């Protein structure tokens, strides 16, 4: 039993090490992606400074910049996790290694745990670099921000995005040719309803109701409260709790759906077709 558990743990590390090798080998792509992400975050944040001119009235532009900066950072972090998890299949479709990996004697939980550990570490580091550049450029004062609390909120929010990512990863399994592109729909819908760049109150009633069940809503509100208002860590529990509950529901459901889909793919011969 212990041997089996230790073997599964070792197998889980296979995905962490493999992804680290891939990042190292694709280093030029990583630089391009980082430059794109920084430019993207900055261009959204500059809207805050531009609002005074656009609206033609006095607005606290600095506060608006902070609001948007937090939105872009949290969203970059959560979407990176989502994409790394969906890559559990999409990447192997691309490389043609999917049959080899799915033939290995490992539990799907082991498989996902390794991919998840890497996804969270990578996303934290990547977002950290964007945060450093943004803080420097906008001269943001984080002296009263609760950075530890913000990280805790983001980590608790990761769980639900891991679950959603596992569900998203079934698309490349079901649709070898276009499945990877289909995953963008999920992230776009979450972006719309979660209040990334605006308060959810401005949304139509129907979308506001959907926002209640989006874990990103709580992660964004919690991170803003920690960074902008410096809310103490204990008081952040209001945001952490729903994010943890969402994760506790999303991960088992995701694994269950993935298991069903893998069985369907083995039944219909979809593992073999490389997209």
């Amino acid at each position, binding site marked *: 039993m212990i041997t089996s558990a*230790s*073997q*599964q743990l*070792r*197998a889980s*590390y*296979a995905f962490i*090490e*493999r992804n680290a*090798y*891939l990042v190292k*080998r*694709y280093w030029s792509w990583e630089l391009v992606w980082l430059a794109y992400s920084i430019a993207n975050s900055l261009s959204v944040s500059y809207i805050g400074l531009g609002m005074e001119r656009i609206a033609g009235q006095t607005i606290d532009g600095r506060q608006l910049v902070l609001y948007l900066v937090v939105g872009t950072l949290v969203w970059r972090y959560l979407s990176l996790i989502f994409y790394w998890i969906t890559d559990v299949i999409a990447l192997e479709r691309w*490389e*043609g*290694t999917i*049959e*080899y*990996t*799915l*033939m*290995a*004697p*490992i*539990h799907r939980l082991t498989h996902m745990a390794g991919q998840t550990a890497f996804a969270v570490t990578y996303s934290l580091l990547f977002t950290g670099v964007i945060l450093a550049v943004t803080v420097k450029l906008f001269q943001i004062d984080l002296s009263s921000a609760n950075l530890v609390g913000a990280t805790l909120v983001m980590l608790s929010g990761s769980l639900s995005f891991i679950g959603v990512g596992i569900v998203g990863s079934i698309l490349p399994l*079901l*649709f070898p040719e276009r499945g990877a592109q289909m995953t963008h729909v999920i992230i776009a819908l979450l972006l719309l309803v979660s209040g990334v760049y605006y308060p959810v109150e401005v949304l139509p009633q129907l979308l506001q109701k959907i926002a209640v069940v989006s874990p990103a809503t709580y992660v964004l509100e919690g991170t803003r409260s920690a960074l902008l208002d410096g809310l103490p860590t204990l008081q952040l529990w209001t945001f952490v709790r729903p994010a943890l509950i969402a994760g506790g529901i999303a991960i088992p459901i995701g694994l269950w759906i993935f298991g069903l889909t893998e*069985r369907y793919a*083995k*039944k*219909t*011969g979809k*593992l*073999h077709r490389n997209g």
Partner: protein
Amino acid sequence: MDEIAIHVQDAYKVFQKGSDFPWKRKNGRESSGPVVAVDNVSFDVGVGEIFGVLGPNGSGKSTLVRLIATLLLPDRGSIKVFDHDVVRESMAVQRLINRVSVEASFFKKLSPMENLSYGARLYGLDIRQARLQIRAILDRLGLEHSSIDKPVEEMSRGMQQKVAIARALLTRPAVLLLDEPTTGLDPRSKREVQSLVRELRDQDGTTMLLTTHDMVEADTLCDRIAIMDVGRVVALDTPEKLRTFVSSQNGNEPTLEDVFLELTGKILLNEENNV
């Protein structure tokens, strides 16, 4: 046969060809109907035996290998590896097997060492021991030392296939599924692989199921050969006995190729006559 390594009983696999979407399949243009890939196939492979499967393209050889490798689920029948059912006890089967396919599927930017380390971790091997073994196996297969740390994409097709074979050998499987392992290799590399196959059986007692188009390879390596056509086994015996299926022509002893053409050709003719 003292002990059975692979038991295949009435295995049947059918694929629905056409669109991914069931409503599109109703359209005559999109659907090409069901294709029976493996049609009530039965055979046993003894422990330590090299069992060949010969057949023209589309005869069901690779589907049969994928069924044994737990990458496809049979629609009917039963397949067992050392008494473990490939559907109900897939993880136990996965621990006993490995597979080399005709496509040497790798993470192309990663080196042989990185790809094989990933494989070693997936199978729960001690990584320090595994890295020593990787070098030894690649050395045995004649891979240049300088290639071990270069990206796989920079290697020739033959070299990539050797790395694929090394990956399978690394886990020391009790059953090795070789799906056209020498396709695309130059004559010298082909001979090296063939001698390795013999060595594996003689030294480790590895059971091997080998699919190939190369009649000479099948003749010299295999203890018994099954000839498949349109999903069915049309003949199964030792190479010597198979040769007695056809009469000598022009005073020359019949070759395995003569047997193959005679059996698969006859089947095709009969089917055309039945239409």
